[in-house]
């Protein structure tokens, strides 16, 4: 092996990578916010007694979860202009991420809602708790506790998925990597370094989520 590694080419472009990392965070947070919104609205429709409201949500979840994100983002990229919506690639990517993440969020949140048993709520009332307290302590907190692990790992997954948004040239880390690669031809060095950045991002997110979980969702000590 007589290849000489040259990471200098990557270090020279470090500021660009830093901005692109912020772009990745922007995509991830905006995409996740949209996903949560879709998730909550979807669950309301999905758990209603109206069959006409339930069916489209079920179809939406199945279609999104059984097709690749790459195909979804291409479809949305070409479909939006035909609907008269002209957005830049980054905004388009956020919509695609939100729709994709939303389908998974619906299933996760639904699981949390269904995990609350009616007897617990009735027991709360029997103990003389206020309606607000019953909702806060018996419905909301246990439901959040139940969905928190899946929802946060979905968030990390969505953050890693933002890399696919390079295919429509959204502003994020992978597209920056491809740009630097085509300028410097240091393919391995560039992608190796950027993979490292992603690893740091996901590790930091995991750490923060664990801290939040310990602070807010741990069971009170006996």
């Amino acid at each position, binding site marked *: *092996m007589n*290849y000489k590694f040259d990471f200098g080419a990557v270090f020279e472009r470090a500021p660009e990578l830093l901005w692109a990392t912020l772009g990745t965070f922007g995509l991830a947070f905006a995409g996740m916010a949209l996903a949560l919104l879709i998730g909550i609205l979807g669950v309301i429709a999905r758990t209603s007694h109206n069959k006409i409201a339930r069916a489209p949500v079920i179809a939406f979840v*199945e*279609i999104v*979860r*059984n*097709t*690749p*994100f*790459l*195909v*979804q983002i*291409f*479809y949305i990229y*070409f*479909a939006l202009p*035909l609907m008269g919506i002209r957005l830049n690639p980054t905004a388009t990517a956020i919509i695609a991420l939100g729709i994709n993440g939303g389908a998974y969020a619906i299933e996760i949140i639904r699981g949390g809602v269904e995990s609350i048993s009616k007897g617990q709520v009735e027991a709360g009332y029997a103990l003389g708790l206020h309606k607000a307290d019953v909702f806060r302590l018996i419905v909301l907190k246990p439901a959040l506790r139940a969905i928190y692990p899946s929802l946060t790992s979905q968030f*990390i997954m969505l953050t*890693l*998925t*933002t*890399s*696919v948004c*390079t*295919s429509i040239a959204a502003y994020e880390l*992978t597209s920056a*990597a491809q740009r630097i690669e085509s300028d410097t031809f240091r*393919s*391995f060095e560039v*992608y*190796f370094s*950027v*993979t490292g950045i*992603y*690893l740091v991002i*996901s*590790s930091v997110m*995991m750490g923060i989520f664990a801290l939040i979980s310990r602070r807010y969702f741990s069971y009170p000590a006996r």
Partner: protein
Amino acid sequence: MGPVGANEFLFLLQGLKWTALLAVIGFIGGGIFGMLIALIRSSRNAAARTASAAYIALFQGTPLLMQLFVVYYGVALIGIDVSAWLAVAIAFTLHASAFLGEIWRGSIEAVPKGQAEAANALGLHYVSRMKDVILPQALKISMPATIGFLVQLIKGTSLAAIVGFIELARAGQIISNQTYRPLLVFGIVGVIYFIICWPLSHFGTGLEKRMAKAAR
């Protein structure tokens, strides 16, 4: 705009052939190495456990697309002259081995401890204890998650398109560029993926529900 006819559809099916092949190779190769990872991950040697945990964390904490890029350019650097095809296949195998390894570690640990102890008490050695007692039970427990990952893997092969590999998604891109009918073409491509993935997903959740009922 050009028509999307039999020729275009045939080209998509050619792409589908590579998608299927990539998924099968990734799943079989990843299954073999993944089993190794799962066994190391649940072994008694602390150093081996840590190393396999790091391997899993590395693949679960980075985007699949980056893994494809790094392996794709990495194998070329090592000096082995491999085709693009083999490089992509290696990347999917490594990716799948980490995910399957973690899934199967979980199911190995989910087998009640008494089973391993009973096997020990019967004087079974490690190979027989694993092969005849633990793994058959663990495999059953892991089925829903394993099928779920298979669906992820099939969808994931579409990322080979970004590296330039012509599988179903890339074939769709090419046809779309030729015919200027992106919605129709990507619609068809989406339907093809759905036809493959949906029955698998359905089967997986069905198994999960049945097992949840049995456990109650």
